[in-house]
């Protein structure tokens, strides 16, 4: 038995060649230095910004819920409506796309079309999609709703497809053996296995959509984001603070509600 070398044991390096390892470290260091030099660090602009930051953070300490309350309330209600409607519509639409994108359920052409569609839905950031929909449908909540639906279908569809591909195939096979048609096999053999995960992910998406509703409002797609950008543009940092506090509170509330729902449903 070899015991004398036990203390000297080291895991083998992930990159076998010592020269390659040294070159990688040197290369990484040089790149970081060059990157830092390339950034235009302007001390004067930083000083100017610091003064504005003091105003901004000062506003944080004096949140004003009153002056712009009607705008804030309208923005919040719009954001909530967009979030709930888009999550529900996205959930419903994601089911056919998710099932169609599961390799173990459908023939290759259907799989390719559904996977392709889901990839397109996820290809662009929500802000870009929102800009597109604002250009198509004009400013307001409908553009935001459409943006969130597309994002939700891309997100839930992909994860549903992955969940379906990981299911236990035996119950599905048992239903096939009993002569059950395709739709019944899906309803009884697939959905009961993936539904807990999908409901959990839908509740998570609800959180994300509320946050996103604030972001896409910045480009004109309605919701609390539009109220926020207006307050910023007017340098009303007290109202900005109030809006951000409300967004954070809503997210906390959503977390509590979704946690309870998850426990009850799953």
């Amino acid at each position, binding site marked *: 038995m070899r015991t004398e070398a036990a203390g000297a044991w080291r895991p083998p390096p992930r990159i076998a060649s010592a020269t390659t390892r040294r070159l990688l470290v040197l290369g990484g260091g040089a790149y970081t230095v060059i990157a830092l030099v390339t950034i235009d660090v302007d001390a004067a602009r930083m000083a100017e910004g610091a003064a504005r930051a003091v105003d901004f953070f000062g506003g944080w300490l004096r949140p004003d819920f009153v002056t712009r309350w009607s705008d804030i309330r309208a923005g919040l209600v719009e954001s909530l409506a967009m979030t709930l409607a888009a999550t529900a519509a996205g959930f419903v639409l994601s089911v056919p796309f998710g099932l169609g994108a599961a390799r173990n359920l459908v023939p290759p052409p259907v799989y390719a079309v559904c996977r392709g569609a889901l990839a397109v839905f996820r290809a662009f950031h929500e802000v870009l999609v929102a800009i597109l929909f604002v250009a198509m449908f004009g400013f307001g909540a409908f553009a935001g709703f459409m943006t969130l639906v597309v994002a939700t279908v891309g997100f839930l569809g992909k994860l549903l497809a992955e969940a379906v591909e990981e299911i236990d195939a035996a119950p599905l096979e048992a239903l096939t053996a009993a002569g*059950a048609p395709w739709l019944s096999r899906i309803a009884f053999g697939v959905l009961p296995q993936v539904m807990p995960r999908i409901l959990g992910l839908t509740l998570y998406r609800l959180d994300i959509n509320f946050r996103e509703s604030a972001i896409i409002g910045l480009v004109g797609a309605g919701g609390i984001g539009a109220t926020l950008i207006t307050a910023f543009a007017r340098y009303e940092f007290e109202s900005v603070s109030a809006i951000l506090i409300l967004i954070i509170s809503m997210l906390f509330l959503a977390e509590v509600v979704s946690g309870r729902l998850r426990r009850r449903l799953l």
Partner: protein
Amino acid sequence: MTASPGSDLDGYGSAEHSVLEVEDLVVRYGTGADVLRGVSFTLAPAEIVGLIGASGAGKSTLLRAVQRLVEPSSGSVRLGGTELTTLGTTELRSARRRMGMIFQEHALIDRLSVMENVLCGTLGRTGFWQAVRRRFDEADVSEAFRLLHRMGLEGFEDRRCDELSGGQKQRVGIARALIQNPDLLLVDEPTASLDPAASVRIMTLISDVCRESGLAALINLHDVPLARRFCPRILALHEGRLAFDGPSLDLTDDVLTAVYGEEAVESHVVPTPGSEVGRAD
């Protein structure tokens, strides 16, 4: 009979009045070697047949090929005279309803209730919306209650299947297969995950319900003593070929050696007729 020393009983292998006729069945996965190499046999009504063989001999593949859960490469499978290998999707679904299948690991939907799992056996004849809304035919629901009572699972209707023991799950699987009202029961290693006592109980149950309803059964068993005890006729597969087809009494040392190899028989891993090791009764 195939290579079955001393097992030339009249009536075995006769295609007349058979429930199932398998002829020269070949199954090949992809471009690999044949898993089944020209298997032929018949099953008479109410006949309980054990299917034994070493791991990889093709036992499960044979059951799955009869159901066309794997596609046969060549050969013929006839259920009550209907050729299954050439059926289209709709006709195949109808034919599958006539074959109840019991699976090794139960193959239940854990998140559904016992009753829902049993009624899944009726999905072949229940409309989609009717089933989704849980509006199953009253006759099917009554039959499900009767079967659960017969399986010793009275009062378990609304329990979720993931709350049941292995033996209870297997009984739900049996009820699901029986509610199809099949002509033939295909049973794939029903005792694989059970202890010896539970294995005997499950085999007794399967054997009894087959006798009560005159149901033919082809039962894949890895446990030779159980096969001997419950199956009057045995089919033994060796490397995809039928190495034995005859009464269980004729399952001699020579046959078991041919099926499992000398080492397994000599070490009593596969108990022979004279050996006490591993006997279930």
